[in-house]
């Protein structure tokens, strides 16, 4: 990994810690924003220019604005904080232990395998043209699936929210 990638990875992990460690939801959203922008840097460093830009525009832009909007909607009366003590005894401790065990197992599993040497990328790898060719020539079904999914999501949200008389 290059120096830029290492810095972006550290920032992404720091933002991830901030998401689950902050008490106030607004700080969680800002930490998530840091993580998503660092991930976009990592994506672009991997040659995925188009996906990195989409990540910035769609995720760090649109989806995060949606989160902030919902938080401000919920905060109209009082801050949307969770109750201080869980009803499930030991939830924090055992949840953290389970996540740590999973992380160790996944890292061991991921590093046990000896990966072949990386192939050299072709010219224009990850640019809009190559991405468009892959999406529209080889994976048209994925594109149609995504379109159907977005439509279902939009209709579902409208039905969910607007059903109240």
């Amino acid at each position, binding site marked *: *990994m290059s120096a830029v990638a290492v810095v972006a*990875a550290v920032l*992404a992990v720091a933002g*991830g*810690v901030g*998401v*689950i460690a902050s008490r106030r*939801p607004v700080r969680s*959203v800002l930490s998530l924003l840091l*993580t998503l922008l660092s*991930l976009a840097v*990592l*994506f672009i460093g*991997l040659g*995925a220019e188009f*996906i990195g830009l989409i990540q910035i525009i*769609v*995720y760090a832009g*649109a*989806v995060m604005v*949606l*989160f902030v909007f*919902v938080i401000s909607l*919920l905060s109209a*009366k009082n801050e*949307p*904080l*969770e*109750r201080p003590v*869980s009803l*499930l005894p030991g*939830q924090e401790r055992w*949840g*953290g232990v*389970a*996540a*740590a065990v*999973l*992380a160790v197992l*996944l890292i061991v599993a*991921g590093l046990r395998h000896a990966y*072949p040497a*990386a*192939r050299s990328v*072709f010219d224009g790898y990850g640019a809009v043209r*190559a*991405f468009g*060719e*892959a*999406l529209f020539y*080889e*994976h048209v079904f*994925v594109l149609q*699936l*995504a379109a159907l*999914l*977005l439509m*279902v*999501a939009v209709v579902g949200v409208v039905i*969910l929210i607007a059903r109240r008389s």
Partner: protein
Amino acid sequence: MPGFAIEGYVIVSVVLFALGIAGVLVRRSPLVMLMAIELMWGAAALLFLAFARQFALMDGHVFSFLILVVGAAEAAIGLGLIVLLFRAREAVDVDEVRELRG
């Protein structure tokens, strides 16, 4: 990019995914749980792109595009559900939603 090593990306992705799992398991605010799920989407997309770079294929890009789409749709529906939940019973803690308890 000479000397590309995928192991670092695998580790970063695993750590982000585990942070997302920890957030879903430990936190009880539905908003923060949704954000932790977004962390897991991001980790999965990073792994797809890292292996796409490893094998110099564009297919991983298509699938991380699909991950972005699914993540956005999930965020929209999840936030709609949270708003509904809050309207119905002022609940900002999943412990307060116990009507489905057996």
